């Protein structure tokens, strides 16, 4: 691993599913401590990018590379990527009836950060503090994973996991969708606590600029039809909020 290697590096990433190409050459670098945002309409390929980095088996890499800290991820299974430090906050987190939250969290922390991190007072204190940060009551520990959770509870539970797992790279796939203003404020607090001041990098995927008012990105990228058509600073998110995506669609067509 190079000392200066970015946390995440995507080069010429082409991805398809079921024979249909979705991503048409994505180049992206996220360095330590940086927060990047990818914005785009429904169907632009945002979730495909997130799932591909996590290693979802349904997505086929047609060409290109994905590296974490300079190491190739393509041959690794999703659980190996998770243990290397990739975290995906799911847009639609799965419920697992019968699997208790407390047991799940301990097992997950042990798998990713080692047995010691999931033991005793340090684990209990970290859990207590993270639960307070994202306003999750202790009674959640005896509930089943995402089973019967409201939309907002699911998103807060994803951020709780982010805080406990301390990944190198956090991908947040539409974590703001379905949340009201207060919900966005709570999850943003958790994201900032997990990423700001750490060595981690983050990729926030969203339709809207609302969450970016609370989690300030260093860079914003616009994804249209599977291509990044424009990159800029946080001001780009505001520009998109004002002008929509239409003005950038011609850029995507020109490159087709």
């Amino acid at each position, binding site marked *: 691993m190079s000392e200066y290697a970015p946390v995440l590096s995507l080069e010429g990433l082409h991805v398809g599913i079921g024979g249909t190409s979705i991503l048409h050459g994505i180049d992206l670098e996220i360095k330590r401590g940086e927060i990047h945002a990818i914005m785009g309409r429904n169907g632009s390929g945002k979730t495909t990018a997130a799932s591909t980095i996590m*290693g979802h*088996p349904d997505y086929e890499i047609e060409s290109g590379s994905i590296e974490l800290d300079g190491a190739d991820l393509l041959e690794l299974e999703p*659980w190996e990527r998770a243990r290397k430090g990739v975290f995906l906050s799911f847009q639609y987190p799965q419920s*697992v009836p*019968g*699997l208790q939250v407390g047991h799940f969290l301990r097992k*997950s922390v042990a*798998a*990713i950060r080692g047995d010691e991190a999931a033991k005793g007072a340090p684990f209990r204190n970290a859990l207590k503090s993270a639960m307070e940060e994202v306003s999750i009551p202790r009674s959640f520990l005896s509930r*089943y994973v995402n089973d019967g959770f409201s939309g907002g509870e699911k998103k807060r539970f994803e951020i709780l996991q982010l805080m406990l797992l301390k990944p190198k790279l956090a991908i947040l796939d539409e974590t703001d969708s379905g949340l009201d203003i207060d919900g966005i404020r709570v999850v943003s607090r958790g994201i900032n606590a997990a990423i700001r001041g750490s060595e981690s990098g983050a990729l926030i995927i969203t339709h809207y600029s609302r969450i970016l008012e609370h989690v300030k990105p260093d860079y914003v990228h616009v994804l249209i039809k599977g291509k990044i058509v424009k990159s800029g600073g946080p001001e780009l998110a505001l520009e998109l909020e004002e002008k929509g995506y239409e003005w950038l669609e011609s850029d995507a067509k020109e490159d087709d």
Partner: protein
Amino acid sequence: MGVSEELYLSLDEPPTSDHLWRYTPWKKIHPTGDFKEIPRDVKSPRVNLTYVDGEPVEGVTLETGKEAGIPFEGSPTTDSFLMAITKGNSLVLSIPGKWSNEKPLLIDIETEGGVEALHLHILAGDLSEATILTRISGPCEWLGLLRTAETGKGSIVTDVVVSKIQGGSLVRVDALRAGRDSTITSGTVSAGSQKTKADIRYLLDSPGSSLNVLGSLLSAEKMHLDHHIEINHTAPHTYSRLEWHTACGGASTSVGTGMLRIEKGAKQADAGQLFHNLLLSKKASANSIPELEVEESDVVGCGHGTANGPVDESQRFYLMARGFSEQESEDALIAAFLNSTLTEMGGQDVHSWLISAVEDALVNLNN
């Protein structure tokens, strides 16, 4: 010759066209395979009653020598056969009226081999509150277990049977009659026996009774598990739910047949049943056939369903994204699948006890 023996010998072999015998013909599970034979040398397994923590029980009795009947009619073949071979081998568990204790009772049934049989009759008095765990374990060749029960008015009874016998065949017949306004939780946890044929029946013939039937079953290797669950609503304002989860691994076969019957006059009955099979290998097979017979039009609800499938790939991906390896995620999902019914069988202490009772069996599932 006793009445039961006489009745049994007068019967024809039950046809496989009968719902109850479709998947496990009687001669396949009969102790000798000869339909007309009633074994003579039938032993009683060892039976011991304590609290679940091993402490002696006070106020509740387990007595031998009391003859007990079957509270309502089921299959004449197995009813008469088991009554015949358990003659003199019956035990009556009596829970007095208003008796209650938070600690679960444990009836330990230990098999030793050969042909064994037992009739256990449970009488729960009016307004009593009890949790009864029946654990069947030990080396087994053939065990016939007849469990009959009557719950008193307003009683609250949790009755869980855990089968962990090693190999052999288990023929189990249950007939439980619910008293007025009684609340019953009835669980089956199965993680043993090469062949099981269970015919579990409930009669809700008093108003206000409530029944929750739960199953957590593991079938592995070449096991054959066949459970028939029949719930009969004959009184108004009765409630029942059935949720039956079976994890099928190896080259095992699992069968769950349900009969939910709402008779004329069972007004405002509310009933539902769901069979759910988790298929863990291509060689495993699962058949679930819930059936309804509804003769009353004024019901709150009455439904049934079945779902068969492998481990959910989206759930697996979610766990893998949280660092669970492929095998760990599969194990966690199997345990969760079984746990979602286990956890409904009682409070935290019952749940912990049940988990420890089945943990060792989980490792055999993927073989």
